């Protein structure tokens, strides 16, 4: 009896085996984007499998807060999937240095990405790239088009126009000029300092000079954004000191505020909440006609588990992730998360299209504090949150804040000493 069952099982297995292709491979993707599960299952994976018969892909996300810890223990135990979704900068760099992520510098699709796009997943010297960039988020200002039409104002291009617009909205009194609070601090740094700053420190040029130690945070290009932020306080709503991030979002989508200093990740949420038309403008430049810079912050990428037994198939998949086809699929499924691919992507969402169109006329950079500079104590990113919020509240002068940040950075970072 037992023997017959066993024989039967073996026969079934053999039949099933011949049914599927001989080298059928299943790739598993580790990710923290559990929000995107249906997008991967319904749109992205079917498109790949149709083009690459013989390779099956499974998307197995975990909760964002647990991802790093869970991934590390899976990698240590040898049970992690073949493809690893990469956090930007040090978290992934540590995995590469620990031999957990494979070097992908020789991948053909890498040619489709600019150096800025790859910088979040490279060794410090830029010699080795270990993840294929997937998406970035862009900073700018989202505005209420109806409110602007009502007040007869146009989106500003220069700093002077920007404050003229704010003055006009404030004078009229119907709308809060700008929806932002300092309670949560990170908005002041991320949507404030890192949003308008690249125009002053000239994007990558200034960021790299800071890392190399050729510029200091007390230099004019790094202090001036704080002086601008110090002027913002007058245009934020009543009691902005205690206003939280969700408060700001609600103020804007309820139509009570006219301008929202934004990151593009807000787009899908705002589309669902706001019942007025929205537009967007890039951070204003000092003089009309100046070269403009935007924060196009690299946020998510995908790499290869160095211990994967299916490396060949995984590389095929990664080549596809680096293609224009994937870029278009991904960017349209998730408006606000923009493809980092050099090939232009046409998006259906007008607001997302507006944001991404700035890439053509402006230079892209990433947030100045994310690469290398936040490795020590005191942590520059956290200090920047605090300094930006202080400057907006008027609790600290721009010069003092810059001097404090510089002293903190110089206390542990060699090139700044």
């Amino acid at each position, binding site marked *: 009896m037992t023997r017959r069952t066993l024989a039967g099982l073996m026969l079934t297995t053999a039949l099933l085996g011949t049914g599927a292709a001989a080298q059928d491979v299943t790739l598993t993707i580790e990710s923290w984007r559990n929000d995107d599960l249906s997008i991967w299952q319904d749109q992205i994976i079917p498109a790949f499998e149709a083009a690459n018969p013989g390779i099956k892909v499974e998307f197995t996300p975990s909760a964002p807060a647990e991802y790093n810890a869970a991934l590390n223990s899976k990698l240590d135990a040898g049970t992690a999937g073949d493809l690893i979704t990469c956090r930007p900068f040090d978290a992934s760099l540590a995995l590469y240095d620990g031999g957990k992520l494979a070097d992908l510098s020789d991948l053909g699709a890498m040619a489709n990405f600019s150096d800025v796009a790859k910088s979040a997943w490279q060794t410090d010297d830029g010699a080795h790239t270990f993840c294929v960039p997937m998406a970035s988020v862009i900073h700018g200002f989202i505005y209420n088009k109806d409110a602007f039409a009502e007040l007869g104002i146009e989106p500003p291009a220069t700093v002077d126009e920007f404050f003229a617009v704010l003055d006009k909205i404030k004078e009229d009194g119907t709308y809060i000029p700008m929806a932002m609070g300092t309670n*949560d*601090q990170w908005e002041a740094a991320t949507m404030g300092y890192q949003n308008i700053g690249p125009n002053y420190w000239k994007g990558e040029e200034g960021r790299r000079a800071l890392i190399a130690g050729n510029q200091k945070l007390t230099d004019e290009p790094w202090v001036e954004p704080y002086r601008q932020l110090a002027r913002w306080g007058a245009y934020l709503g009543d*009691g902005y000191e205690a206003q939280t991030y969700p*408060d700001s979002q609600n103020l804007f989508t309820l139509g009570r505020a006219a301008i929202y200093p934004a990151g593009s990740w807000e787009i899908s949420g705002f589309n669902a909440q706001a019942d007025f038309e929205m537009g967007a403008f890039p951070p204003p430049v000092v003089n009309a006609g100046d070269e403009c810079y935007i924060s196009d912050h690299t946020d998510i990428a995908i790499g290869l588990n160095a211990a994967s037994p299916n490396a060949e198939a995984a590389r095929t998949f990664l080549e596809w992730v680096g293609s224009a086809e994937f870029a278009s699929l991904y960017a349209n499924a998730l408006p606000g998360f923009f493809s980092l691919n050099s090939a232009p992507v046409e998006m259906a969402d007008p607001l997302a299209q507006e944001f991404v169109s700035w890439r053509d006329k402006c230079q892209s950079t990433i947030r100045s504090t994310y690469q290398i500079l936040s490795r020590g104590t005191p942590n520059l990113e*956290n200090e920047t949150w*605090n300094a930006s919020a202080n400057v907006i509240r008027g609790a600290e002068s721009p010069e003092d804040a810059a001097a404090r940040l510089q002293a903190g950075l110089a206390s542990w970072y060699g090139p700044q000493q």
Partner: protein
Amino acid sequence: MATRSRAHVIVFLAPAVLVYTAVMIWPLFNTLRLALYTSGEEGRVFTGLANFATLFGDPRWSGAFWNALGNNFWFFFIHMIVQNPIGIALAAILSHPRLRFAALYRSAIFIPTILSFVIVGFAWKLILSPIWGIAPSMLDAVGLKSLFAPWLGRESSALTTLALISVWQFVGIPMMLIYAALLSIPEEILEAGEIDGITGWAAFWWIKLPLILPSIGIISILTFVGNFNAFDLIYASQGALAGPDFSTDILGTFLYRTFFGFQLQLGDPHMGSTIATAMFAIILAGVCIYLFAIQTRMRRYQF
């Protein structure tokens, strides 16, 4: 015979001692031990008291530490001068024999104590919100709108506001303990006082208060330990950075940021343990001062 009869004591104590050792004593001493190490190139390195030298010697670390400690003392001070007098007053009113609906008041005042910190923090944040909050509109209704300020967002008022929220939440505990102490005072003593002409306020001041002093001592030390271990309320309402500008940073949030890291800052278990050890020492010192300097001198009355 005497030694045999003691064997069972050990057997009965063993489970509790083992569990307590495993989940409390061992982790405590391991934390103290961790403070003596640092992570070097090849794993953990013993560095003796170097972490303490950093914590108290480095101007950045010591600045953050003394700021947190100072805030913690202010937090405790507000509790002592607001929570305990209100608790005693409420207990005195509740124990009044002619008060109607005493049970209802007692429960109503005690309910916030059983709420989660997260709920309390969130609810008060909404109440005090300058945008949607009920506090500005209530003040407006009585014509005092000008008194309203975004208290939680101002450096000058954020910590005091949070301390008062915490008092609101926990005032039920001193009230209950003192209420129980007041009920245990025998009627005969009060009647004897009445015969001597001591009634009303004088009776409370000269008879009841001395008799409930031991309870007030216990409440003070519980408040002290609770406040110096506090973390949840600040974290729930102001976040781990304890804004604005670290004005609400107490030892608990400072420890959390250091030990577990925050945003791009990676956690540092060794400096975290150093802070935890300092907190342990502060609380231990406070409790010892109470036990040896205050409690032993307190007079107790037997009825």
